[in-house]
């Protein structure tokens, strides 16, 4: 996956994160990958305004996004059938990697979940995954979003143990590879 090259120069990204430094880190990583159109917002109200006023190709969202939280924001965005950006690809960047939070993020309709602290490799692999392995959207009574089952080859690799930016969480929280595997297990979940 790391050998695949994606051209981010023509894409417009929206980073929705109330933490200005965390947002700046994501912005820097995208800029390093060649993205030159990146919009940063600190709350969901401004995010909606940006999404309404300009074309956004991909959103990176924090679960703690005010005022209602990023997960609820994405769920609402996905569920409204009249929403023009309903199928916008979304990556959730979360430092809260408790299994309950990761499942909520997955079930909100996010395309991918990336554990904070983020590293360039983790972001790039998941951007490439979203770009080259788009999943069909599923509409059910309780869910609208990308098919929560990943193809048989599975999700991209998790963070490398040698990655200096990777600081694995302990205890009840999940590593990036465990987060990815939840998408595999989702095939057993009712939609």
């Amino acid at each position, binding site marked *: 996956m*790391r050998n695949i090259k994606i051209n981010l120069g023509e894409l417009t990204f929206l980073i929705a994160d109330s*933490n200005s*430094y*965390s947002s*700046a*880190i994501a912005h*820097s*990583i995208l*800029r*390093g*990958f*060649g993205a030159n159109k990146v919009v940063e917002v600190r709350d969901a109200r401004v995010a909606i305004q940006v999404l309404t006023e300009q074309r956004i190709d991909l959103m990176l969202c924090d679960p*703690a996004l005010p005022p209602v939280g990023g997960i609820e924001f994405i769920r609402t965005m996905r569920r409204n059938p009249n929403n023009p950006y309903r199928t916008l690809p979304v990556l959730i960047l979360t*430092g*809260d990697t*408790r299994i309950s939070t990761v499942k909520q993020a997955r079930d909100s309709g996010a395309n991918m979940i990336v554990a*904070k*602290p*983020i*590293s*360039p*490799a983790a*972001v*790039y692999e998941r951007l490439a995954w979203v770009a080259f392995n788009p999943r069909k959207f599923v509409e059910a009574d309780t869910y609208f979003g990308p098919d929560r089952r990943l193809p048989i080859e599975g999700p991209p690799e998790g963070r490398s143990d040698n990655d*200096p*930016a*990777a*600081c*694995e*969480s*302990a*205890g*009840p*929280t999940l590593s990036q590879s465990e987060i990815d595997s939840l998408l595999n297990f989702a095939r057993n979940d009712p939609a």
Partner: protein
Amino acid sequence: MKNASVELDKLKAGFSSWLAIQIAHLRRSAERARAAPGDAAGIDALYRDSSEIRDVAAPMGLPLTGFVADYLCRVLDLTREQAIAYPDEIVQCHVDAIVLTTQAGYCGSLPSDQQELIDQLDRSYEHYCTLAGRNRATARDVQASAG
């Protein structure tokens, strides 16, 4: 990938001043939570301050600081889930440990470089998990299973 790392390095110049402000917020939030341990909004603010440090410290070259902030978040998770009363003493210990990890001798260390500190945090967390009736793995368990 190299360009992304270069861009990240540029951010490091302003990180110490951001972190100093953030730690001041964290201390104030901890003082407020001590004064009003039943106030959920106050504990949420403390959690937010800690999580902001947790999310950015490692990419900015302070992985141990991020690790300790993550521990504080997990202690506060138990409080927010109303599993235990607000643990003022352990919160203060974590806040002090966060400050310590930003200072010379600790700055830039990996968690595995400071095993004594990690062991102390593990013991505190285990203690509070026991009080909360939770059975949760600690960093030591994770390291052991990985090994």
